[in-house]
C-alpha cells in the first residue's frame, strides 16, 4: 500500500479577478521509504500541491481530489482536528526560507519541544533530552546552548538544521522538503541535502524533495515527477529521466543544466510559466515548446503510456525525437 496516494488533485484560489487554478489534476504516489523529487519552475504548483496535502492552504483555496490518502487515512473527509494529529507527527514539512520559518519570539528549543509536547507523552525532562538528541542528529554543535538561542542568532544553514530537527521530532513517515536549500549559500546547500538524504536512509522515512534545480535532483533522489503550470507532465526513475526525457519540458530543463551543455551557449527555455491571465489553449507548454505545432496549440494532450513516462504530450520524445508525429498529421 502506498504511503501517500493522490489522484487528480486540483487547487483553485479565488482572487478579486476570478479563480486561479494553481494545481490541475495532479497524481502523486509515494511508497514508504521512497525518495522522490517534484521538479518545476516557480509557479508550476509544486509547493501548493504539497501544502494542500498538509492542509496548510489559506481559506481562499478550494481543494478537490478523487483520492487523497496518507498511511491508509483518507485526508479528504478528515476533520481539522484529526488531520492535526497526523501532520507534524507522521507527515512533516520544512520550508524554503529557514530564517523566516522559525518564530522570532521563541527560542529554538521551545519550538522543538513544542512539537514533542503536542505529539508525544514525554515529560519535560524527556522532551529536553529528545531535543538535544535531535540537535545532535542534524549536526548542530553545542546543542544545549543552541536550544536557548533565538532564531535570529542562527545562520541560515543552522536555522534550516533546526527546522529539520523540528520536523523529525516525532519520527515522521514522510518528510516534505519544500526547496530546502534555495535560500542558502551554495556550500551550505550540499551539506543540507546530504543531511536530508542521510537522515532518510537512517530513519527509513519517505522524502519528497520539491525543487526547481535538476542538478539537485540528479545527486539526491531516486524518482522524479516533473510539474508544469499546475500539471504533472512526466514521471520517471531518475536515471531513466536523465537518459531519455519524454516530455519536451523535461528535455529543455535538462538541456539547461551547465554540466550537460553541449554547445558553447547554455540553452534556455524562452518565456515564463503562464499565469492567471495568459493561459494558452491546448497544451499549456505549447507556446514555449520547440516541437509544438497547430495541433498542440488547439487540443489538450492526454497522458502517454508508463513506458513514455506518463508524459502529458501529443508527441512524447524518444531519445530527443518526437514520436507519433506521423500518425497525427
Amino acid at each position, binding site marked *: 500500500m502506498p504511503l501517500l496516494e493522490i489522484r*487528480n488533485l*486540483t487547487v483553485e*484560489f*479565488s*482572487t*478579486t*479577478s*476570478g*479563480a*486561479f*487554478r494553481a494545481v*490541475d*489534476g495532479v497524481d502523486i504516489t509515494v511508497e514508504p521509504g521512497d525518495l522522490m523529487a517534484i521538479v518545476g519552475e516557480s509557479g508550476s504548483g509544486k509547493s501548493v500541491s504539497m501544502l494542500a496535502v498538509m492542509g496548510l492552504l*489559506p481559506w*481562499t483555496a478550494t481543494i478537490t481530489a*478523487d483520492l487523497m490518502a496518507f498511511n491508509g487515512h483518507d485526508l479528504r473527509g478528515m476533520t481539522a482536528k484529526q488531520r492535526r494529529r497526523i501532520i507534524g507527527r507522521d507527515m512533516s514539512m520544512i520550508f524554503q526560507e529557514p530564517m523566516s520559518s522559525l518564530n522570532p519570539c521563541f527560542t529554538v528549543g521551545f519550538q522543538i519541544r513544542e512539537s514533542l509536547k503536542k505529539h508525544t507523552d514525554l515529560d519535560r525532562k524527556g522532551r529536553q533530552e529528545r531535543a538535544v538528541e535531535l540537535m545532535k542528529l542534524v549536526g548542530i554543535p553545542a546543542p544545549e546552548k543552541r536550544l536557548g538561542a533565538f532564531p535570529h542568532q542562527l545562520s541560515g544553514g543552522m536555522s534550516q538544521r533546526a527546522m529539520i530537527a523540528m520536523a523529525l521530532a516525532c519520527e515522521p513517515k514522510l518528510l516534505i522538503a519544500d526547496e530546502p536549500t534555495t535560500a542558502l549559500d551554495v556550500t551550505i546547500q550540499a551539506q543540507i541535502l546530504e543531511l536530508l538524504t542521510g537522515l532518510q536512509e537512517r530513519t527509513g522515512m519517505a522524502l519528497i524533495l520539491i525543487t526547481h534545480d535538476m542538478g539537485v535532483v540528479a545527486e539526491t533522489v531516486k524518482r522524479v515527477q516533473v510539474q508544469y503550470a499546475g*500539471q504533472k507532465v512526466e514521471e520517471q526513475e531518475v536515471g531513466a529521466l536523465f537518459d531519455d526525457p519524454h516530455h519536451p519540458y523535461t528535455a529543455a530543463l535538462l538541456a539547461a543544466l551547465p554540466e550537460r551543455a553541449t554547445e558553447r551557449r547554455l540553452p534556455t527555455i524562452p518565456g515564463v510559466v503562464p499565469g*492567471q*491571465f*495568459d*493561459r*494558452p*489553449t491546448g497544451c499549456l507548454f505549447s507556446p514555449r515548446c520547440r516541437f509544438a505545432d497547430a495541433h498542440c496549440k488547439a487540443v*489538450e494532450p*492526454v*497522458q502517454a*503510456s508508463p513506458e513514455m513516462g506518463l508524459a*502529458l504530450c501529443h508527441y512524447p520524445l524518444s531519445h530527443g525525437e518526437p514520436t507519433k508525429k506521423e500518425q497525427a498529421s
Partner: protein
Amino acid sequence: MSDASSATARTIAQAPPSPLKDFWNAFSENRGATAGLVVFMLFLLVAIFAPLISPYAPDTQFRDALLQPPVWTDGGTWQFPLGTDPLGRDMLSRLIHGARFSFFIGIVVVTVATFFGVVIGVIAGFAPTWADTLIMRVMDIVLSFPSLLLALVLVAILGPSLLNAMVAIAIVLQPHFVRLTRAAVLSERTRDYVTAARVAGAGKMRIMFRTVLPNCLAPIIVQAALSFSTAILDAAALGFLGMGAQPPTPEWGTMLAEAREFILRAWWVVTFPGLCILVTVLAINLMGDGLRDALDPKLKRS
C-alpha cells in the same frame, strides 16, 4: 487513457486588468466602501443644494413651535419633520445646512494639512540629516500634545471661531502627513528609477515632486481620507466645547452644545446632530478603509 483534468473547464486567456480597473474592482467589491461612497455622495449633494432642499432658512424662528417633537411622535407635525429646537428653528433645515459646514471644514482642513504636510515631508525626505532631524523633532513636539488639547489651546490663542478652529485642526493634523510622506520618500528615493532619473539629468525639484512623489501617493491619499473624518470630528468637538463655530451657526457640534441642557426634555435636539456627525464620519472612514485595502497590495487577497 483519458485524464480527468482535460474534461474540466479551463480558464481561457484573458487580458490582465488595468491598474485603475483593478483598483475599482477591489474598491467596489468592498461593500462597506461602496456604501460609504454612496452615503458620502448623498451628503455632498445635500451640502451643495442645501438652500434648495431645506424647507426653511436655518435661522428662521417659529415662536409658537418651540421644542416641537418629530412628526412620528405625539405632538409632531409634518411642518417640522424632525421637530424644532429650543428657539423654534426647524431641525431638518439646520441639519441640512450643517452638512455644508462639515464638508467645508473637511475640505479646507485636509487641503491645507495635506499640502503643507506633503511639501515638508518631501523636503525632509531629501534634506541633509541635520535638517531632516530638525523637521522631525518639530513634528515630534507637535505630536506630543494630545490633538484636541492643542487645537483647544490654539483656538484660545487665536480666538474662538470656525476659521480659527479649522486652522488649529490643520496644524494638529499636518505632522501625520509629514511623517507619512517622509517615510514613503525615504523608501522610494533609493530605488533604481530615481537613480535613472538623476542620471538622465533631472533637476532636484523634478526628482522630488515629479519622480518620487507620485509613487508615494497611495498612503497619503488614504491618510487624507481618514483626516477628512478626523477634521469633521475635531471641529464638532471644538464646537461642542464652545471653541469652534459660534451660535447661531448650524454647525452640528455647536448645535449639540446648544441642545445639551435639553437632553432630558427633548431627545431629538441631541440625537439628530450627533447622528449626522456619526453617519458622515462613518461613511468617510468606510471609504478610507476601502481605499487603503484597494491601494495597499500587501493586504490584498492573494
